């Protein structure tokens, strides 16, 4: 099967093409690859410098990993504690089993507020449940306020990274988008001028739109507080100026105590952007009279998460604090960028998170989108053993394949069955070797290498050469040598 490569990336795992196919448009686009590589090089260099400077980095990782594991083992207790404390502080807690329910809860809340517009702080969870198109279809205008998210929203682009979602767009592309959508005639492509344009575009929205939606970096069980980590101040604007705030948070985001931020905040900024600390971290608790929104809702989203808790290997996935260090370190992500992963969660963490959120019904190609080199595990601030989870998920994909009725027509399945037959019988193996030597002779060039094979074999030779079979196997040589010795 060969489909034409889609021109617009699809980030719905149920609809996205398999990874190798989705990666082609990027691999064929040198500009895009240059943009991605440049951004990653900059973050990687900054991260490396600041991690080296931190002499207790490994101890922080150990603490964070144990803490996140402890939370996940006791998630029910910490979630109900969060709910009790948040409610006592004047917040209203909602629970959503899946994306559809979360969207509906948020829409109902907005309808109650008579909201026609809503301002948003960047939240990957809202992208996961595809909230914006749903609200737009219901007649509610959504305004992203993070600079990268504005670029994506105005440009009709899709996010390709979880921390720097527009890293695949360069300055001249941003200039074009802003000039077109903000109606600014003579805009330069200087990042400073572009940032200023976004500032004035949003200022009025911040001051007038009475309803905001945020995600959450952390929920604090002990106090019922929510923490948001950001750089630009758009988060603070949304958290402070509107009348009503709606926070959408995955159920795994909870931490036991306020003090636990001392571990997470030290790891997060260094891992995510290579800074000692991000410019702004905000924490609020329910409703504070006279300060900030006077109505506050939290929507706790499951959407496949609770089913990932069952086994220790897969459970690790939920330790993630969304720093994106794994994608920055990944040699595969570096080549393909984020869109190839067909999900709002790209890179190594996406490769293990997305198929599990889809209950392994979609995105089965993602566990294979890795060389298993382990760079992601090495940089992960909460020590998620991503290669281990990748292997486990590959195992599950193979099990699915094995149960599939039409599998006997699959050349891969057929080939492996035949190989199984041949490898388990010595005489068949030797016969196969002799046949292959004759069969491959016409494809082997003078240099002893096979540069191209027809049909299924081309899958191997289109990216690498194959050494031709030697005229004598080791067994044959050994037997001949003993005869000579006699």
């Amino acid at each position, binding site marked *: 099967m060969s489909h034409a490569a889609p021109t617009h990336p699809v980030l719905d795992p149920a609809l996205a093409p398999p990874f190798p196919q989705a990666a082609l448009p990027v691999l064929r686009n040198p500009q895009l690859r240059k*943009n991605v590589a440049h*951004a990653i090089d900059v973050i990687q260099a900054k991260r490396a410098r600041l991690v080296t400077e931190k002499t*207790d980095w490994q101890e922080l990782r150990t*603490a964070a990993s*144990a803490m996140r594991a*402890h939370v996940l083992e*006791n998630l*029910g*207790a910490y979630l*109900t504690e969060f709910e009790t404390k948040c409610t006592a*502080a004047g917040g209203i807690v*909602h*629970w*959503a*089993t899946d994306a559809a*329910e979360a969207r509906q809860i948020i829409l109902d809340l907005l309808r109650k507020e008579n909201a026609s517009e809503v301002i948003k702080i960047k939240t990957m969870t809202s992208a996961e449940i595809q909230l914006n198109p749903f609200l737009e279809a219901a007649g509610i205008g959504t305004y992203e306020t993070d*600079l990268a998210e504005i*670029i994506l929203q105005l440009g009709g682009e899709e996010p390709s990274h979880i921390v720097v979602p*527009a890293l695949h767009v360069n*300055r001249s592309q941003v200039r074009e988008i802003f000039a077109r959508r903000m109606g600014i005639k003579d805009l330069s492509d200087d*990042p*400073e001028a572009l*940032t200023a344009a976004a*500032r004035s575009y949003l200022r009025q929205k911040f*001051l007038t739109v009475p309803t905001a939606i945020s995600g959450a970096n952390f929920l*604090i069980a002990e*106090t019922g*507080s929510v923490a948001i980590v950001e*750089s*630009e*101040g*758009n988060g*603070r*604007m949304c958290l402070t100026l509107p009348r009503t705030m709606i926070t959408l948070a995955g*159920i795994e985001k909870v931490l036991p105590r*306020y*003090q636990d931020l*001392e571990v997470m*905040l*030290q790891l997060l900024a260094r891992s995510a*952007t290579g800074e*000692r*600390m*991000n*410019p*702004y*971290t*905000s*924490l609020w*608790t*329910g409703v*504070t009279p*006279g*300060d*900030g929104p006077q109505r506050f809702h939290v929507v*706790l989203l*499951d959407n496949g998460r*609770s*089913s990932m*808790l069952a086994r220790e290997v897969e459970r690790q996935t939920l330790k993630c604090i969304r720093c994106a260090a794994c994608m920055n370190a990944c040699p595969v992500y570096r080549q393909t960028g984020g869109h190839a992963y067909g999900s709002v969660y790209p890179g190594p963490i996406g490769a293990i998170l997305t198929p599990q959120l889809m209950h392994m019904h979609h995105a089965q190609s993602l566990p294979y989108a890795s060389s298993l080199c382990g760079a992601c595990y090495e940089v992960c601030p909460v020590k998620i053993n991503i290669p281990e989870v990748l292997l486990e998920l590959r195992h599950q994909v193979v099990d699915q394949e094995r149960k599939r009725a039409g599998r006997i027509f699959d050349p891969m399945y057929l080939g492996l069955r035949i190989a199984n037959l041949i490898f388990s019988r010595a005489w068949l193996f030797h016969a196969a070797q002799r046949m292959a030597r004759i069969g491959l002779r016409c494809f082997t060039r003078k240099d002893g290498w096979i540069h191209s094979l027809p049909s299924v074999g081309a899958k191997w030779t289109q990216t690498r050469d194959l050494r031709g079979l030697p005229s004598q196997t080791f067994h044959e040589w050994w037997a001949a040598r003993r005869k000579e010795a006699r």
Partner: protein
Amino acid sequence: MSASATSRQRILDSIAATTRPVAKAPAQLAEGYAALPRGYQRIGQLSAEACVERMIERLREYDAEVVESTPDQLPEAIATQLGSSGRHTFAAPVGLPAEWYAAGFNWKMDSSLETAEIEKAEGVVTAAFCGVADSGTIVLHHSAMEGRRVLSLLPDWHLCILLASQVVETLPEYFRRCPQPPALATFISGPSATADIEMTRIKGVHGPRFLHVILVHDEGDARPTPQ
């Protein structure tokens, strides 16, 4: 709300079903929490002076403007900073010591100012709760001297008065100073910034573009008292 109540039960049931072998009773839960490894650096190693020096150095790395002062000279230092900013209208929380409101400027005292009024201010003066030297972070708990959250957000120019006695070396030391977690907190590490366009760092997207800090060498005892 009933739909959400059912969903609540379904999610909690699903969690209970999957975590049953490991989930703990409340007493065990506290024990499990207390046993978590905390081998990272919790207490700083620098002397008080070196700690303040590092705070200043890190703030300057963020392009924040830092001047030092003694408690006696503080009102004068504030007036100098305000004067050299070229701005005239300043917002400030009502709880600041009276002598901090330098004469000759237009002051907007906030307890419940309209947003539009704060937006008109050209700058803001606040106190702080804590400074973390390691990362050059200023923590606000939004008390009567630190002001509401909106106050230190809308004006483009923020003058923050930080006492040497409020500066700690490590982030865990800040948390040790909070026996009761605050309801509101804002951690500020340098002025508002973005690197979303080609990783070029740009100052000032939405928050204040200019952060000025007066570091007051108070030797630990001369904390100004709120009004």
